[in-house]
């Protein structure tokens, strides 16, 4: 049964991410504490599922995967140049994946880092329900890269929809969001739109307009979120295409 939920982990607030790019964030992180570091931490907090998925697909069990994900993010935030990966341009997704691969390749270093590092774990795994972690099970015949991409896409969509929901909630229109969210993916048969109209007490014409506005806003939100993870605005299209391809 598909899980209709909102992510347990807090999503980054829209205001923080509206204008920053991940490259800037990453650069700022290395210079110690500050806004940049917090921003990066929140970014990482959002995007742990794909990394977790990749590590799981590589064959580690859940506790190991958790540890490794933690360690990876620690190192990322400490700005220990993760090898030859150049964060200057390109996509955050590719950068993370490359870094993760590099990281896993030198796994024995991790053991040392865990002992060395200490401090507050960045990702509150305990706060995340176990089922959610268990759901990321390597059962498909996907490659780890593909699993990573898929999970990235899912996380991205999760994030965008949460933002959308938050906006509607702030505007006091959460019931409207609930009623109309099904129309995000398609029109559906005409009767259902009539039913929706009846259920929330709006005319059919108003419902149509509301659906249109929802879709429009959704697209904007999604694209903004993607824009955070790519180098230039022009790459948004390509990123969307590639993520779509992950589901084929």
């Amino acid at each position, binding site marked *: *049964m*598909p*899980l*209709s939920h909102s992510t347990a982990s807090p999503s980054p607030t829209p205001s923080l991410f509206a204008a920053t790019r991940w490259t800037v964030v990453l650069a700022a992180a290395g210079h110690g504490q500050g806004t940049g570091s917090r921003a990066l931490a929140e970014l990482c907090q959002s995007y742990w599922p794909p990394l977790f998925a990749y590590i799981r697909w590589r064959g580690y069990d859940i506790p190991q995967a958790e540890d490794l994900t933690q360690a990876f993010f620690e190192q990322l935030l400490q700005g220990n140049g993760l090898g030859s990966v150049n964060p200057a341009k390109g996509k955050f997704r590719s950068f993370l994946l490359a870094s993760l691969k590099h990281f896993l390749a030198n796994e024995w270093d991790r053991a040392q880092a865990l002992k060395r590092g200490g401090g507050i774990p960045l990702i509150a795994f305990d706060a995340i329900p176990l089922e*959610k972690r268990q*759901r990321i*099970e390597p*059962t*498909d015949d996907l490659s780890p890269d593909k699993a990573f991409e*898929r999970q990235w*896409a*899912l996380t991205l*969509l*999760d994030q*965008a*929809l949460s933002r959308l*929901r938050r906006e509607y909630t702030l505007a006091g229109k959460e019931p409207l969001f609930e009623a109309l*969210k*099904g129309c*995000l*993916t*398609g*029109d559906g048969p005409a009767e259902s739109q009539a039913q929706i109209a009846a259920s929330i007490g709006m005319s059919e*014409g108003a419902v*149509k*307009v509301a*659906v*249109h*506005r929802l*879709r*429009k806003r*959704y*697209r*904007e939100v*999604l*694209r*903004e979120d993607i*824009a955070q993870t790519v180098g230039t*605005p*022009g*790459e*948004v*299209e390509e990123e*969307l*295409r*590639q*993520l*779509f*391809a992950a*589901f*084929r």
Partner: protein
Amino acid sequence: MNDEKQCPQCGANLPSETPEGLCPACLLQRGMETQTAGTGGTPEIPSPTPEALAGYFPQLEIVDLLGRGGMGAVYKARHKGLDRWVALKILPAAQRNPAFAERFSREARALARLDHPNIVAVHDSGEVNGLFYFIMEYVDGANLRQVLAAGGIAPAQALAIVPQICDALQYAHNQGIVHRDIKPENILIDKAGRVKIADFGIAKIVGREARDFTLTRAEDVMGTPAYMAPEQVERPNEVDHRADIYSLGVVFYQMLTGELPLGRFAPPSRKVRVDVRLDEVVLRALEKEPERRYQQAGEVKTEVETIAGTRQAGEGKAPSDASTTEAPRPDSQQPWRRRIWPPLVGQRNGQRVIHWLAVAMCGLRGLLVLLILCIAFNGVMIDSNERFLSAWAYFEVGVLLLSLFLVIRLLQGWALPLAQLASLDKCASGRSITWVLSIVMICAVLAALTRLFFLAPYRVPTDAALPEIPRGSQLLVFKLGRKFVPGDFVAYRQGREVRVARVAQAPAHGMLQIARHNEPLQEILVSSVIGKVILNTRPERLATPANTAQTETAAHAGAISDHIINEIQPDAPASTAPKPSPVPAAPSGDMKTRAVAFVDLLAKGDFAKARAEFDATMSSAMSEPMLGNVWAQLGAGGGKYLGHGSPRQEIFQEYIITYVPCRWERMQVDLKIVYNRAGKVSGLWVVPAGSSIFAPSPTPTPQPEQK
């Protein structure tokens, strides 16, 4: 994940965690798609109103906005001058740069070259006040998207639509133009049911502009992703015409099932009642790698038309009904071609392999053809001065050509890409016909071997060599007969000819002495002998005393004369040496004239009259066919009777022997006519010119005189 749900929209399997319970693929798609006209609400990008446009196009009367898409807005207009409806398409406002304008005009010219009944024709194009436009054929109908939304189409209709699309695609591909954006919105169906494809190549014109759009006003101008081939998504610059075939596959699938082929999709026959053979077509068109797809739209059309033409009555078969289909996969070429010329090279596990069985089949088939030709050629000419290749030689040449042909086909097959080999392999050829052909060919091979090594038929057209084997008889030569006894007939090779002769002496030292008519005894190599003649088909065996006498190898001219003498004058002492004797009563001059007249009769073929000349005692021996035969013998030289010279005469006892020299094209012979005391012909021979009964023949070795 055992309890997989599927998205009702696109049919893809839903992961266990879905954002807000929605299908991620659809969500992503929505993130990319622009809105199509009619979904309500204010459009995002304002398009010019008809009134605003009217000023720019004075020659048109712009009536209505038909629709909007990623490729711009389309208006219905009336061309005032020509009084016909046209469609005016305005491309989305692009940055004004010369590169775009130049590309626009280049592509527009390419599009204008497309003149096909299934492609929306372009009448005009240009730029006016910053607006790039096309004036196109107006199609009075609906697009496929609207048709699908209205309730779908029947499989039969889909099978009627797809070939038209293929036609258009093949035509455009031949011109080097790829559509790149085949989707239901671009497939128009007019009221007559004709399919017209719109927006050809426009994706290429506006494509690069996509990246220049800023975030909030981004439009998808690269096509709807669900219909895009994987290589279009991943490597847009390496796209070729096969991307259109993928898109066609998606549209086809959607027409049949109403859903998009996303993720792990089920073949059409398992979703709706359609012909199982369509599965193969759709799946192959939807192959991820371009090499594995159909390489030409025309191939798809052929497949679909074949299936449509051979469908059972009714709407198609139940998905699980396999008994009515002969093979689960359709042939990619016409079936009869596959059976007669199966592929020689296939692939297994990504490696090229040679199908040796197929090679053997091909070889045997070729041999069959060759053998039929050779046997029909009916043996060989013997003793002809004309140069005929023997059937064996023909056969050898044929085998050589066949091998060459096989090698070429093997190389051809080797050169094919692996994917194409794999698809060729899938076809199940008609087994029964193949095996029948094979059995026939095995028999033919055996017959050939028999002919080569055991028995060989020959035909003797020119004869002359031996009276026992007259002209036109057919021989059977036993090739394994190696024991030669004098009196046997053998066939042997001399140079490039095959000849027949009689064995004169048993072989010795590898040489065999043979005798041929009117030729001196010869010696030939035993190895040049093909075999013994064991059968002679001519029913008329000349088994007469005269003939029997001829089969003796008389080495001496005198022996015959002795025989005559003994018969006529039994009490006269037999002598081996002829002695001159006084002339009989008949005058010699008269005899000569009569001899000449006799020869003329023979030459005219008036054998009845010639026969009347013969003595009663000898007449039984001299039949008309025999006369004809004698005359035919003279034809052995291959020439015609050209007349005669003046006769000679010799007197022997009571016989007047007249020699009439006969001139032939290549031979000079004497017709030796023996007249008896009564003045009748009592003997007739063909002898070498200049023969005489008193002396050995002019040729060095004594010759057998034969009739």
